[in-house]
């Protein structure tokens, strides 16, 4: 893997509009049964603008940024050898339906561990006003020759 990727910031990906039905679909897929995830009136009486996305929902938004990294011509990452090592979401506020989210990827660290490499990529996700919503941090392990 190319160590010069560290510090590289990619162009923001196209804005992602969080739809109510997508939140519900994702919620069902992760066994989320809270009324806040499914019922707009429950979410609104709790003070949210619309249904609340489950905590790992930003992975859907982050995916396009990781695709940028894997497609980077000089990255030297063979995606068939990539294993997900760590994942973290650090929020300023919950994601709700109606949010228009824009993600920007930065490579923050590359380490070698024997034949393997570990790349940490941070996707900073902001809303339509530019305010921070959540940062999604992934560490990918790229397996070397064994």
């Amino acid at each position: 893997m190319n160590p010069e990727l560290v510090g590289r910031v990619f162009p923001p990906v196209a804005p992602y509009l969080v739809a109510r039905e997508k939140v519900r679909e994702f919620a069902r897929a992760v066994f989320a049964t809270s009324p806040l995830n499914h019922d707009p009136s429950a979410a609104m009486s709790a003070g949210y603008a619309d249904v609340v996305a489950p905590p790992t929902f930003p992975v859907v938004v982050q995916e396009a940024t990781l695709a940028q990294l894997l497609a980077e011509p000089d990255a030297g990452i063979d995606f068939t050898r990539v294993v997900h090592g760590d994942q973290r979401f650090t929020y300023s506020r919950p994601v709700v339906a109606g949010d228009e989210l824009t993600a920007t990827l930065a490579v923050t660290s590359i380490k070698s561990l024997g034949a393997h490499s570990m790349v940490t990529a941070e996707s900073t996700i902001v809303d339509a006003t530019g305010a921070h919503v959540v940062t999604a941090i992934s560490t990918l392990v790229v397996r070397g020759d064994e």
Partner: protein
Amino acid sequence: MSIQVGDIVAEATYALTRDSLVRYAGASGDFNPIHYRDDVAVSVGLPGVLAHGMLTMGFAVQPVVDWLGDRGWVSDYQVRFTRPVVVDATTGASVTVLAKVGAVEDGAARIDLTVSFDESTVLGKAQVRVTLR
């Protein structure tokens, strides 16, 4: 919130099936065939079809979300993927989640998750920070 370090706030068991994996693939957009095709999983050296790590991360936090209700929200959530969850085509996979208070601060708490399959933990350093509203 009257909780103390060491308190168990939630426990749950999730019965995963291949249907769960297909549903998560569609909802998340992760269509890697190792999560639904035995032949592909075996060809890359895996013991079988695996649950998406992000699926396990996704449901493992739900007992905390349900315990919290509308009193607060998840402001930070991290995991390390340490072992795969193999989902058998006929019998599926049973994954248990134990959520225990790891730290208490003013208006916030850290909840530590123990997520187990086949008597081994599958997530490391699985920590949820909850912030009261």
